[in-house]
């Protein structure tokens, strides 16, 4: 008999005791290697555990991930956490339950198949025991086998029903919960003096005036890295200003021309790879017509509401770091290189931060704190970035150009489709190279040349090429990616990676194709989507306002778009209404998604709503601005995001699929939202804007 394969995360971390621990007091400790980012992950995982073990949700304690005791599940990214950690925990719980039922059978001297579990109690007729009474770490000190556990009565059905978020009571009641709230006794407050521009080098530094401030404990300098720690936060801030005034920098014009960023992308050294290629047998007929169109997106900031923060302490042997990183083990690997310590000497423990939406400054600030902690042994050091640091120094989602070429037959049907993507790589995550990617390490005196962002392989979700392949049934498709190898601005993963620009480009173009045929764009999509689940989400938004019941009127337009995230993830369709006055406003938005089994349907709806609103902000307003030397959009007034008065009404429709595997929901909204808005603008005024953000100025310039 062959053993079924373990879920990947469980195969990497097979020890059951690494995932679960039953305690005598009835608490079940659960350790996932994935982390809460405000997406509601811990709540969904707890639902899965409660279902599989049949324990009350209140008995479950989701432990913060730590390199000291958590399973290594890589990075919490790519909308994969429910697939990875959820599947692993489901199997681990199933096996743990079987082990405890066997122990209960021995204790009660009955056959295990006669046992029933309810609310953590294990019953045999009128006698019972419990997980708590049997709790013994030895029982789970064994590897998962992947063998099917004994079948048990149906689980509680918590999975698939709306659940309230476990982390929200603390956040709403104002109890300490965020990493920013971590203020251990004796804590020092640290700040970093970042260079004035990406290419700046520190020529000289007068530290004396900063050190002279009462309460300043240490000033650390290494190359162009400068930081200070003080007994009080306001003293650290005052010292930072003195350091700023005492620093002389050399700055150079290292940045491209923002107004000509796509020409710049195409002119850089690059690495070209084939992403997808399919063609019918035989020679292709000569196309009756060919169109070409180029689309662009600017650099976009993660713009987390909370500047990144970390707390570190060094006792001379061990570095302990609390961080809102998305990957505790990856961060530890880069910290080890940057600090010249063995990884075993570093413990990284996760603490919740604000939403990050990808790779922001979370990892970088952890090294900042560790460097100060090393200079102040025995004292925990809390470092907070400033708003300016967060908007100017955290990695950006990279600028992209997407070139499309489409061949048509004589009837206007697509014969062949080609996508060319130009972009930096979309991952500068730590822990993957011999050179750390952490910001401070790139400023050290002996820093190795900074490495450039990579794209993960397409089987792992890809990067700039994500969703570059259209979902429609075109006879021939060719997709080529050009990874740009110059990186004057730090580029890394921003929610949905390349999918945002690629889906914007594809969905804008198929709308044009349908209209050129005189065909309803939504009907065209349905005609070219073979997958019934794809058609179902399109039909779901079509049945709701603003698409349904639409009446054309001056200044308003409606648009729709569809994508299956990553080509194999969540299905998502969006329809919007826009109103054009002196600005562009999205007034109403409907979004439908099929994420397989939605573990927490309200959590999925919340992610869809939030994703659609954030993508509306990106689409209408957002671009990182820079001159040839400095990033200049380092305040909210120079990097505006969508406000209450600009937010559309949103209806989220979750097509529940109780019997299909769960798919990640967090990023599916981004690309379709951009496409739907672009198409609604065209519907309103007949203008096709191909450069993000879609501003009134751009529309006016074309029309």
């Amino acid at each position: 008999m062959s053993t079924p394969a373990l879920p990947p995360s469980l195969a990497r971390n097979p020890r059951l005791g690494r995932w679960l621990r039953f305690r005598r007091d009835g608490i079940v400790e659960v350790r996932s290697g994935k982390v809460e980012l405000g997406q509601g992950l811990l709540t969904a995982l707890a639902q899965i555990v409660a279902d599989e073990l049949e324990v009350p949700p209140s008995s479950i304690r989701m432990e913060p991930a730590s390199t000291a005791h958590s399973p290594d599940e890589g990075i919490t990214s790519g909308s994969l956490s429910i697939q990875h950690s959820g599947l692993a925990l489901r199997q681990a719980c199933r096996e743990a339950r079987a082990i405890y039922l066997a122990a209960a059978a021995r204790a009660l001297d009955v056959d295990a198949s006669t046992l029933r579990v309810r609310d953590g109690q294990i019953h045999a007729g009128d006698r019972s025991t419990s997980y708590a009474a049997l709790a013994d770490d030895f029982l789970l000190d064994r590897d998962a086998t992947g063998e099917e556990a004994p079948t048990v009565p149906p689980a509680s059905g918590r999975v698939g029903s709306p659940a309230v978020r476990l982390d929200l009571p603390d956040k709403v009641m104002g109890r300490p919960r965020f990493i920013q709230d971590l203020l251990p006794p004796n804590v020092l407050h640290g700040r970093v003096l970042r260079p004035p521009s990406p290419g700046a080098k520190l020529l000289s530094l007068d530290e004396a005036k900063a050190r002279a401030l009462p309460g300043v404990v240490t000033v650390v300098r290494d190359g162009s890295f400068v930081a200070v720690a003080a007994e009080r936060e306001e003293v650290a801030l005052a010292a930072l200003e003195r350091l700023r005034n005492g620093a002389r920098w050399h700055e150079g014009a290292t940045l491209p021309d923002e107004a000509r960023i796509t020409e710049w992308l195409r002119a850089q050294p690059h690495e070209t790879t084939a992403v997808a290629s399919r063609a019918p047998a035989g020679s292709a007929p000569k196309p009756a017509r060919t169109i070409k169109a180029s689309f662009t997106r600017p650099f976009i900031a993660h713009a987390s509401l909370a500047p990144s923060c970390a707390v570190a302490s060094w006792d001379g042997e061990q570095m302990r770091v609390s961080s809102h990183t998305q990957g505790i083990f990856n961060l530890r690997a880069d910290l080890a290189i940057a600090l010249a310590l063995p990884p075993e000497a570093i413990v990284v423990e996760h603490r919740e931060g604000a939403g990050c939406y990808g790779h922001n400054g979370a990892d970088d600030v952890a090294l900042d704190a560790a460097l100060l902690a090393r200079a102040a042994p025995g004292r925990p050091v809390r470092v907070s970035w400033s708003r300016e640091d967060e908007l100017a120094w955290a990695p950006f989602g990279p600028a992209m150009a997407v070139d499309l070429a489409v061949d048509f037959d004589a009837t206007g049907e697509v014969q062949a489709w080609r996508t060319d993507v130009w972009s930096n790589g979309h991952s500068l995550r730590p822990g993957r190279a011999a050179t750390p990617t952490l910001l401070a390490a790139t400023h050290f005196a002996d820093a190795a040349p900074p490495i450039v962002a990579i794209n993960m392989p397409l089987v792992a979700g890809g990067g700039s090429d994500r969703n570059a392949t259209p979902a429609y049934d075109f006879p021939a498709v060719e997709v080529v990616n050009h990874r740009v190898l110059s990186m004057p601005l730090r580029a890394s993963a921003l929610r949905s990676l390349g999918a945002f620009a690629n889906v914007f480009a594809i969905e804008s173009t198929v709308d044009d194709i349908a209209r050129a045929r005189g065909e309803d764009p939504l009907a065209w999509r349905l005609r070219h989507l073979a997958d019934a689940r794809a058609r179902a989400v399109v039909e779901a938004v079509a049945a709701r306002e603003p698409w349904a019941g639409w009446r054309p009127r001056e200044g308003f337009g409606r648009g729709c778009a569809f994508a299956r995230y990553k080509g194999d993830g969540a299905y998502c369709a969006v329809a919007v209404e826009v109103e054009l006055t002196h600005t562009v406003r999205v007034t109403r938005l409907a979004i439908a998604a099929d994420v397989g089994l939605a573990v927490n349907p309200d959590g999925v709806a919340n992610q869809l709503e939030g994703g659609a609103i954030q993508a509306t902000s990106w689409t209408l307003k957002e671009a990182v601005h820079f001159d040839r030397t400095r990033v200049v959009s380092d305040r909210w007034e120079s990097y505006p995001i969508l406000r209450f008065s600009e937010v559309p009404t949103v209806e989220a429709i979750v097509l529940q699929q109780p019997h299909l595997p769960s798919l990640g929901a967090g990023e599916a909204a981004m690309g379709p939202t951009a496409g739907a808005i672009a198409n609604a603008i065209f519907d309103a005024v007949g203008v096709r804007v191909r450069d993000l953000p879609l501003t009134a100025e751009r529309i006016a310039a074309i029309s």
Partner: protein
Amino acid sequence: MTGMIEIEVNGTKHATQADPDTPILHVLRNDFGLTATRYGCGAEQCGACVVLVDGAPAYACTLRVADAVGKRVGTVEGLARDGEPHPLQRAFLEEQAAQCGYCVSGMLMRAAALLAAEPSPDAAAVRAALEPQLCRCGSHNRIVRAVLRAAAAMKTER
């Protein structure tokens, strides 16, 4: 350091040795352990740090601690009464009106000031009142619903 400064927060007197120019944000968090008031920008641009000063919304990131002397400062920690969550807090939980939740403290305080001045706002009034508050996760519509729900609950309780 100068002498002690005494201020009233959530009805309790607190003392700090902070420099009088120190933003009250740091004093609340680091000296009084009231960490619900959060840093977001330090420049009155995001609203994450909003507290009430004599009932009116104020940015803790720029308010000098010396300027709060003799005034009543209110933070999220003071919203609950006898361990019972404020109707706004109940409504935020009932509507699940957050994703990451970092902006929630400022939203709650701004909304508390609104409901004190206007017990029956409509959705447009709630949006207008919350306009200075930033949310990056896109929880805006749930937050508006939560404030309206709290207003309705406070009316029936009255």
